[in-house]
């Protein structure tokens, strides 16, 4: 579904990604871990071109999206993204946060969008917040809404960049629950996280990123039980 070939990204003279190769298949849940500053976010943000790669190719559903002629707005309609800091639209109610994109992009009319929004909100237990503003919600609620906002676009893949890192500990669970439910529903997911429990439980593959490349890749069981490279062993000894 997503094929990444020799992906490079350089900021000024900081070579953050140095040749990432990976193939993500439909329905997979790829969990990306690695030390801070290793390029995990940059990799994820390259997938929907929030960062423009300085080299290499990204194919999505058979389309070369790194080609400058690609209509990236169209591509992004099929790729949801959830951010560490939620990034709910502060000027809009929860309902408008969710319906803005589907309505403005003419994928649904206003009523359809509201209906979709309400049923999604019900799924995450936040139906009564439809008319609230983001500043009235807790972090966990905001992140669940952010997930719903992406889902309302009916995406083919969902990208998560440390979705629980900005949350108070007691709110991490509620967000992970929603993500697990989403995984069970068959969604293709790429998740950058420090939640090793989630990686073990939900991941189909776990990637270890360091020094701008995917240093190791394995099934969760093997990844945690038999880490091969030293850097990963060292990393796991710190986080487990």
């Amino acid at each position, binding site marked *: 579904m997503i094929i990444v070939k020799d992906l490079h990204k350089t900021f000024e003279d900081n070579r953050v990604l140095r040749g990432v190769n990976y193939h993500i298949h439909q329905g997979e849940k790829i969990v990306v871990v690695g030390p801070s500053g290793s390029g995990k976010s940059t990799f994820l943000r390259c997938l929907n071109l929030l960062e*423009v790669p300085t080299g290499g190719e990204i194919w999505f559903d058979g389309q070369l999206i790194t080609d*400058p002629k690609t209509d990236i707005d169209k591509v*992004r*309609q099929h790729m949801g*993204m959830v951010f560490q800091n939620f990034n709910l639209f502060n000027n809009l109610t929860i309902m408008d946060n969710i319906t803005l994109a589907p309505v403005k992009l003419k994928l649904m009319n206003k009523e359809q969008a509201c209906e979709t929004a309400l049923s999604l909100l019900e799924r995450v237990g936040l139906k009564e917040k439809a008319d609230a503003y983001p500043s009235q919600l807790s972090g966990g609620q905001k992140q669940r809404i952010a997930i719903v906002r992406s889902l309302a*676009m009916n995406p083919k893949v969902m990208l998560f960049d440390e979705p629980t890192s900005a949350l108070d500990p007691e709110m991490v669970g509620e967000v992970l629950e929603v993500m697990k439910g989403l995984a069970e529903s068959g969604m293709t997911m790429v998740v950058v996280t420090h939640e090793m429990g989630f990686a073990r439980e939900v991941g189909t593959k776990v990637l270890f990123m360091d020094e701008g490349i995917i240093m190791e890749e394995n099934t969760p069981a093997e990844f945690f039980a038999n880490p091969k490279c030293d850097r990963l062993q060292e990393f796991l000894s710190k986080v487990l």
Partner: protein
Amino acid sequence: MQAWFEKISKMFHMAFVEGDRWKLYLDGLGVTLQIAFFAAILGLAIGTVVALMKLSVKRNGKKTVWAHIANIYIDIIRGTPSVLQLLIMWFIIMKNCTNGTLVAVLSFGINSGAYVAEIVRAGILAVDKGQTEAGRSLGLSKAQTMMYIVIPQAIKNVLPPIGNEFIVLLKETAIVGYVSLTDLTRAANQITSRTYEAFMPLIGAAVIYFSIIKVLTVLLEKLERRLRKSDNR
């Protein structure tokens, strides 16, 4: 004491009452307000467009031609006296135009636009980048993200400084006497030269400017307080 009071009241009579001179201030005030009002609207329109031009970037992150044009415009306006801009507009660019008010509105509008542009640009940049990224990640275009997400939030940031800019603009119109328009300042000046008495007309005009600006300032503070409240909704 009595003599002093009599003198004052005679000066007042001469400055405002005799020959219905108060009407001259009123007419002058009308010209001042008219120029300031329409120039403010023009400045707001120009400033918003120029701010967006200045913020425009190409896919590779480099500035567009529009951004360079915007920079040149802002540089020129900020680097030359507004009196001179007005004179150039009147004697050179629009020398065939007989409508002095129109010339003044254009000149002040174009001038104010440069300052408004900087205010709007700062207001847009102050909106968290994550807001734009979230909008773009949903497939909204640059323009749609600006329109529905960034600009509504930027408006809150820019209203107070825009209000200040308009107060500055209102006072700055006092230079239109240079192109023989009779605004409040020139009206007062003309009366001075007719009565050979400067105190009352000049202080009177100052009091009028001050009162109008005081009212505007109070309204602005109210608006600001209301905006701050709705931030915590």
